[in-house]
Each structure stands twice: as C-alpha cells, then as structure tokens.
C-alpha cells in the first residue's frame, strides 16, 4: 500500500521500534521535567536568597549550563564520568544531563516569576508573622505559578525535543530508534516522517494540556 511517497506497509513494520523509542522519549522527558523543576526551584530560591554564597553558586550553575551546548554536557557526563571510572547506565546519564540542563533554564523562569510578584506581597506576609518559607509557599509561589505556566510549557516542549540529543550517548529513544532503522534500511522518508509525526503528536499533547491549564487558571483567578 502506497500513500504518495510513503510505503504504508513498511511504516507498519517499523512502527513497533519507533513506538518503543517514543515511550523512552516520554520517560526521559518525564524524569527530566520532574528533576529539572526541582533543581530549578531550589536554584531560583538560592539566586534570590539573602545568602551571598548561595546566590553565587546559583549564578555559576546557570551561567555554565546555559553557556555550553547540551550535546557537550551529555558527552562530558557520559565519557568524562566513564573516564574517571564512574560508570552509570545510559538512562541515568541521560536523565541527569537533561534535568541539569533543563533545571538551569527553569531556574531562570522561576526566578523571573518570583521577582515579578509585587514586593508588597512578601512584606504583607512577613508583617503578619509568616516565616520566609511560609510566605513563599502560601503567598509568592502560588502567584508566581500562574505566570510561570506559559514559559514552563515552552521549556517542557524544548526538553522533549532536546531529549533527542541523548541518542549520542547510545540511549535508544525515538531519535536513535529512527537512526538505527535508517542505517538498516536506508528508507529515510518513511522513517523520519513517521518519527517526526510522533514528536509532533507528543508536543501537541503538551501544548494542549498547558493551554487548558492556563485557561482554567484565568477563569478561577481573580485578576
């Protein structure tokens, strides 16, 4: 069966392999988002804290990570660690690499979100007798959260697409699955069109979820 330049039968043949890759891409993205957001939150809090050394360390982290290609970071982690005698599973290295990288961007997003909240909010919270962390949890972060959604959605999509880079450390996710199939069959059109559509579906799901969340918040929100 033929659909334009695409051989549907061949696509059905390679589909299981690509789907397995896609599942791995989803897993990687999920862990990268969870750990990246945690890292990002702590680094953001460090960067706005009153403690100089924390601010400095946070600054160093985001400076380095955002200033060096992710590809290089992944290679460094994978081969560098192995060279130093630390052998980690590909999956672990991939998750560390993606979360550390995503964390730096997410930290900047969260920091900007927190700083965009009127200073009077923190003052009102403190003047009531809240501790700094109570004020953050109850007053600042819930407000920042609303403003964070759009840029966070973007960042999550970027992380999903960047997860393709872990193919260079032999992690068989969607991108590498496609490359392996290409090497074995030399049929790039079917392979990359199918893989591309899979990426597109996954990113579209993300965009839709975030659009919904934003709209829901816009309705429930007072302002």
């Amino acid at each position, binding site marked *: 069966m033929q659909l334009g330049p695409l051989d549907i039968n061949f696509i059905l043949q390679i589909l299981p392999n690509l789907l397995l890759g896609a599942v791995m891409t989803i897993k990687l993205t999920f862990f990268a988002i969870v750990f990246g957001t945690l890292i990002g939150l702590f680094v953001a809090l460090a960067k706005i804290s009153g403690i100089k050394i924390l601010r400095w360390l946070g600054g160093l982290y985001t400076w380095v990570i955002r200033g060096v290609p992710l590809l290089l970071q992944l290679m460094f982690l994978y081969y560098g660690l192995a060279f130093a005698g630390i052998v980690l599973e590909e999956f672990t290295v991939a998750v560390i690499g993606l979360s550390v990288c995503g964390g730096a961007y997410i930290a900047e997003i969260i920091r900007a979100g927190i700083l965009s909240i*009127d200073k*009077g*909010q923190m*003052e*009102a*919270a*403190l*003047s*009531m*007798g*809240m*501790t700094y962390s*109570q004020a953050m949890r*109850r*007053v600042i972060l*819930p*407000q920042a959260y*609303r403003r964070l959604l759009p840029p966070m959605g973007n960042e999550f999509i970027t992380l999903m697409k960047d997860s393709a880079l872990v193919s260079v450390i032999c992690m068989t996710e969607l991108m590498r699955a496609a490359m392996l199939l290409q090497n074995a069959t030399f049929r790039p059109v079917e392979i990359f069109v199918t893989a591309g559509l899979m990426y597109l579906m996954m990113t579209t799901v993300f965009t839709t979820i975030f659009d919904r969340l934003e709209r829901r918040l816009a309705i429930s*929100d*007072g*302002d």
Partner: protein
Amino acid sequence: MVKAENVRKSFGKLQVLKGVSLEVKQGEVVVIIGPSGSGKSTFLRCINHLESIDSGNVIFDGQPVGFKQLANGKVMPVKGKELCQLRSRIGMVFQRFNLFPHMTALGNVMEGPVTVLGKSKEEARHLAEELLAKVGLADKAESFPSQLSGGQQQRVAIARALAMKPKLMLFDEPTSALDPELVGEVLSVIKNLASEGMTMIIVTHEMGFAREVADRVVFMDEGKIIETGTPEQIFTTPRHPRTREFLSSVLRGYEKVPYPQVG
C-alpha cells in the same frame, strides 16, 4: 507599648532616619505627619523590623525588636520564630493594600490565623466572618480583591491585620491610594478601632482625620521628629516654622478633600 530610642537608618549614603525617638502608650493613637520622603514609612517599617535599624533601639511590649541583649551583654539579632512571633502581634496596613490576589477576602483574613497561629479552618473562618462584618464587608467574603473597590480592599486589609489580634496597629498612609470618595469609609473603620482603645501609629495626610483621631501628633521632616503635641496644639499653634510651613501647604491642598474637618 512601643518605644523607639534614637533610631538611625541609612540606605547606602542616604541617612533616612537621623535619631528618631518616640514612645507610644497602650491605647494611644499617634498620628505622624510630614512631607513625603521624610522617613515616615521607613520609621514604621523599623517598628516591625521590615527594615533593620543601624543603631538605637525599638522595644515593643517589653521586648526588643530586631536586636536583643544577652545576659553577658552581647547584642544578638532576633531572628526566625521569635521575630515572626513579635511581628504577628503588630498589625500593618499598607498604602497599596497588598491583599493576596489569589485568595478571596475571607481567605485573606483567614490566612494569618491558620498559617501563623495554627488555628483550625473553622475557627479562623468564624473569626474572619466576624471581622469582615465589623468592617462592613460581610457580603464580600467570597470576592477576590480584584473584584473590590480600593476602599473595600483596604477594609479587608484592616480585617486581615486585626485577625492576628494585634496589640499595635501601624497604618502607612492607608487612604493615599484611594479615590477621594472612598477615603471616608476607611477612615471611619480606623476611627472605630481608636474608640475601642486600639494602640495605633498612623501616617496620614488627612489632616481633618488626624485632628479627630489622634491623641498626639508627630511632625517629621528629613528623618527627624521636629515637633510633637496634641492635635489642638500642632494644628492651631505649631511652634516650629517648618511645621507651620508644612501645614499651610497641605491645608491649602486639603480644601479639595471632601472629608469634613472637625474641630
């Protein structure tokens, strides 16, 4: 109740408070007036340690604010729980209300009792409803701040501060951000508090209100207290030329404000 002794505070090179001393007794209402930039807000913020002071002393309810002296004579900053505990007994009302926009009016008033005092939701709700009724907003409990007028927001902010059962209330120009027709409703809430015997320090440009509510009026200029006296004395026979100058300049503008002058 609260005593400030020779409080000094600088921002960088700019000395904003140049040795301010003020004692406020229980149940007393002190109104601070003065030109903008004279350090009135900074002084209020030093009282609940939103700003640290460079030197001097602030003592609230017998407890030093910001710094405490140990038995061995060493001075230690008061931090963490102790500071929070202290702040929870001082209510503050801001010029720009600073209500929490993601909570309803009721939620705003419940927040302190629940989060800071650890009261149950029910108990806090009960108290919050009572306080909203007290400031005339029982029917606005479920409204978000953005759905309220400035005057209503400020009254919610007052209820929020009262929910902590404070021993002292600080007001920093509570009506300066309001449209003129909304000023009266906020001032009348504050007057009620005064008549109930609440200890208050109020920074305001509403001279008619100051005259009516104050036990004592303090005139501040350029980081110093220039003159202190009864409202009668400050408004009718100010001793210091700068007080006279300031009063004549604001009273000229004041004729436009609808709040009725009493006296």
